[in-house]
Structure formats: C-alpha cells, structure tokens
C-alpha cells in the first residue's frame, strides 16, 4: 500500500514537474519560431526583389519581363549576354561609366584623406584659441543643406571653366568634408596624450607627430572613411548631373537614371544595368561589413 501511494505521489510530482517545465519551454519555443518566421519573411522582402531582378535581367529580348505567377528565380532563361550588352553598348557603355565613377572616387579619396586627417589632427590633438568655436562651425556646416551652395558653386566652377570636367566633383574634397573630419577627430582623440608628449620631447615636429605617429594609428578609421566615400561617390547623382554634359564622362548613376527615364527601355537590359550598379556596393558591404557597421554605430553614439 505504502509503496503504491508513494509511487503515485512521485507520478504526480513528475507530472507537475513536467507541466511546470513544458509550458514555459513550449512558450519559449513558440516565441523562437515566431521570431524566425518574422526574420525569414523580412529576408524575403529584401532578397526576393533582387533575385526577381536577376531573373528579369537574364531574359532574352522577346520574352516579357513579367509573367503570371512572377518568376522569383532564374530557371529557364540565362541570357548572360545582356550583361555584356549593358556594359559595352555604344550608346550607354556602363563599363565606361563604371570607370568614370571610379576615377572620381579615386580623386575624392586622395583629397579627403589629405585634408580631413590634417584638420582632424588639429581639432583632436592641438590646443589653440577658437578651437571650440570652430568645431561648432564644423558641426553646423554638416546641417546646412547643400542646395544653399549648389547654384553659386555651379556658377563659380562655370566661371573657372571647369564645367564638363571632373574637377568640380573632385577639388572640393581637398577642402575637407565635415562629416569625415568629425569621424577621424573622434578616433584620434582616443589615443593617449603621452604619445605626442614623448615624441615632442624627442624633438619631433608637429607635422612629424602627425605623419609618423598619429596617421599610421588611424588606419581603421580611414578604412571606414574610404568605404563611406565609395558608397557616396558611387551613388551621387545630382553632382555629376549638374557638371557633366558629355556621355563619355557620365558616371554610373547618370547612365542608369538616363536609361530609366529617356524612353521606354528594354526591361531586361535595364535590370542588367541596374545590377551592374548594385553589385559593387553589395560586394563592398560584404567585405567591409564590420568597418561599415562600426563606423555608422560610432557616429550614432557620439552624435
């Protein structure tokens, strides 16, 4: 008898333990499943348009770009020549546009690295009267909409005879960019002061300290700057639109915008050209994800 009752009791307690255990666990599992479902749906929202675009870009000219139901993945048509056509088409040579964009980007890298590191060094590590005031001016210039300067800048460069060249798109970078100066300055402030002091005692000049001690330490933040610059040069539409008038000089953004707006374009070729524009930033994103996310995050936190 006794044994039986104790057996029963242990049964009950096991059942209770199970229910105590199972219900929260089941709830946890359901929550996890719901979480994954939402995340997967969101990934679909991001990825399906891209794979639809690839499908459309691989269709030959005589196949309509749409179909019912929509084809999300390329299955029957693989017209890879569309990419060749988009890249080498004599009317809209996207390969040429890509190279042009890279030339402007290269000029901007040189200009920005040169000017922004110098200016950031002064703000981060030198003491001078008016530094607080000038730093506030720097912050304010970030908030001034570019349109207030757009027309006079255009007239200035027109007067200088720079219209129709890359100079208006490159030269201003040699005067620094407030956002990048801010980013580099924040980074330079994190180094210990003893670094400068020790070098100064050893007889190093300010420029020497900048060039041989501070600058080499800045490599990580400069990588972030270069990635940001690539994305902004690659995507810039208004600047090139204002200053360039010759198809041979066009950047990829103008090429694509013109292709999409001029007349009813072949959708397969338009999608191929669009992929040409999308893929390099995506590649840069995959290779520089850590730097990019770290860079954006640090701006948001310190802003």
């Amino acid at each position, binding site marked *: 008898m006794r044994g039986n009752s104790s057996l029963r009791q242990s049964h009950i307690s096991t059942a209770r333990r199970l229910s105590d255990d199972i219900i929260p666990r089941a709830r946890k599992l359901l929550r996890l499943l719901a*979480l994954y479902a939402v995340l997967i749906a*969101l*990934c679909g929202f*991001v*990825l399906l*348009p891209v794979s*639809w*675009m690839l499908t*459309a870009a691989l269709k030959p000219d005589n196949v309509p770009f*749409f179909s019912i139901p*929509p084809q999300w993945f390329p299955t029957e048509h693989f017209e890879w020549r569309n990419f060749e056509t988009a890249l080498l088409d004599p009317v809209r040579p996207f390969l040429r546009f890509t190279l042009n964009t890279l030339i402007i980007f290269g000029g901007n890298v040189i200009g920005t690295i040169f*000017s922004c590191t*110098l*200016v950031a*060094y*002064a*703000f981060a590590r*030198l*003491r*001078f009267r008016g*530094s607080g005031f000038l730093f506030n001016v720097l912050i304010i210039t970030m*908030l*001034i*909409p*570019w*349109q*207030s*300067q*757009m*027309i*006079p800048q*255009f*007239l*200035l460069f*027109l007067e200088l005879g720079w219209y129709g060249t890359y100079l208006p798109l490159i030269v201003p970078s040699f*005067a*620094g960019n407030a956002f990048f100066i801010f980013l580099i300055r924040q980074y330079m402030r994190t180094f210990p002061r003893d670094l400068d002091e020790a070098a100064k005692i050893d007889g190093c000049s300010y420029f020497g300290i900048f060039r041989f001690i501070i600058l080499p330490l800045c490599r990580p933040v400069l990588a972030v700057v270069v990635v940001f610059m690539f*994305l902004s040069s*690659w*995507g810039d*539409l*208004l600047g090139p*639109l*204002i200053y360039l008038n010759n198809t041979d000089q066009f950047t990829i*953004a103008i090429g*694509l*915008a013109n292709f*999409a*707006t001029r007349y009813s374009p072949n*959708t397969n070729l*338009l999608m191929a050209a669009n992929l040409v*524009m999308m893929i390099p930033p995506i590649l840069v*994103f995959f290779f520089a*994800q850590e730097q990019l*996310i770290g860079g*954006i*995050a640090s701006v*948001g*936190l310190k*802003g």
Partner: protein
Amino acid sequence: MMERREERVAYLFLLPWLIGLVVFIIGPVIASLLISLTDWNLLTPPNWVGLKNYEKMFSDRDFYNSLRVTFRFVIMSLPIYTVVSLSLALLLNQRIRGMYFFRTVLFMPSVIAGTAVAVLWSILLNPDVGVVNQVLGSIGIAHPPRWLASRDWAIPAVILMGLWGVGGGVIIYLAGLQNIPPHLYEAATIDGANPRQKFRFVTLPMLTPSIFFQLITGLVAAFQVFDVAYVLAGRGGTRASALQFYLLNVYEEGFQNGRFGYASALSWVLVVIATIVILITFRTSERWVYYESEGDKA
C-alpha cells in the same frame, strides 16, 4: 612660446578646411542670397530685381506643389521609419542562432544607391504587371493601389522603397541598444519590472539620444530628396507632379529652365524652412531626450 607655436601650427593644419569654408560654403551661401535678388539666366548679364523672385513664388503652382510633396513625405516617412527601424533593431538584438546572417541580409540594401533602388522598385511597383500587385492580388486584394501612377499612392510608394533600405538607421539603434548598461536591466528586474515595463522605462529613455540623432539626420535628408524623384518623376504626367520634390523643382528651374535667380530664391526658402523645423526639433529635444552622462557628450 611653445603655446604660440602650437597655435600657429594648428591653424596651418586647419588651412584646407578654412579655405574650403570660405570658398565653398560661406561665400556661396552669401552669393546665393545676392543671386536670388537678380534674374540671372547666364545668357544676359544679371539684373537686380529686388524681392521679385520671392513675390513670384506666391503665385507659382510648382512651388506650392513641391512644398506640399516634400512636407507630405516628411510627415509620413519620419514616424514610419522611426517605428520600423526601432522595432527591427529590437528584433535583431535578440540572441539567437543565425543572427549574423539575418543582420547581414537586412543591412545589405542600405548600401545600394537611391537611383538603383528607384529603378528596381519602379518596375516592381508597376500597377498592372508589377510583382508587388501580383502578390497583393494573389492574397485576395482585388484593387491594389496604383502606386507611382496614382496621386495618393506615389509618396507611400517612395516610403516603401525607403523601408527596403532602412538598415542604416537600424544599425544606429542597435548600437544604442548594446550601449545600455546591463545593470539598469538588473535593477529593473529586482524591482519586479516586466518586459514591457523594462522597455518603457529603461530601453526607450536610453535610446532617446539615438532617436533624436535619427530624427535630425532624417529631417535633413528628407528635405533634400533628389535621386528618387529625378528617376521616378522624369517621365512627366501624374508622376511628375505627385513626386515633384522640392529639390527637383529647384534643379529644374535652375539647370533646365536657366532661371538661376529664381532657383536661388527657392533654395533659400527651403533652407529657412528646414532650419526652422530643425530648430523646433532641437528645442523640444530638451524635454524628451535623456543623456545619461551630460558631461561627456563630445
């Protein structure tokens, strides 16, 4: 002596920026004010017309329309982007397997240029044969919106495109979330707070600086929408007026119609409006933005 030298050197280092400040920013800002008082068209020498350009705006339908389009976009997009990117950040802050993959995918579109996003979505949102309306049709929506071909749905369509690339803002919120000291949550747990209360009284207040930062940068960006408008409104018709964003109108008046005086006046009006809106946002921020360590903001 040392101090003096340091100061001289500092200004030498600042020189590129100081020159740029005068030549590319302060000079042009003043010049644009002067140009806005002329009828400069590049073909004939500019005439002084006083405030005529500003008076002309009152009877300019394009001006009113572009202002309406821009404000509609600002008012509709900012709350949506804020709520969506904040929720997405909370979602991506969960510690589960495969999160790195989800984050990578969801951040990816934020690096794609506006022009390319607009080109892709203009095809996807085609009202008759576009994929979006096919999907909506297949889940039983008989009359899906006509998106870019409709006066009412054009702006929501642009916002939808923006949501595709909302990851940039999410990164900022995510960094903000990860920066919240864990001891605050521990203290809240000891006080018996439930998850909702923890969000309301710990997470949200601690995120207000990030929300404020996003609001300001979002405002600055919303007043300067151009790429999307240029690509989508370029073909004229309903689209052109429904998506005539302010900067597009300035561009057309200046660089297509050659009215540089009038275009300068238009840009000045926007700068003033944007400044007022941003200042109001800064003012209200004192009431709702919480800085944990006031002394260490730089």
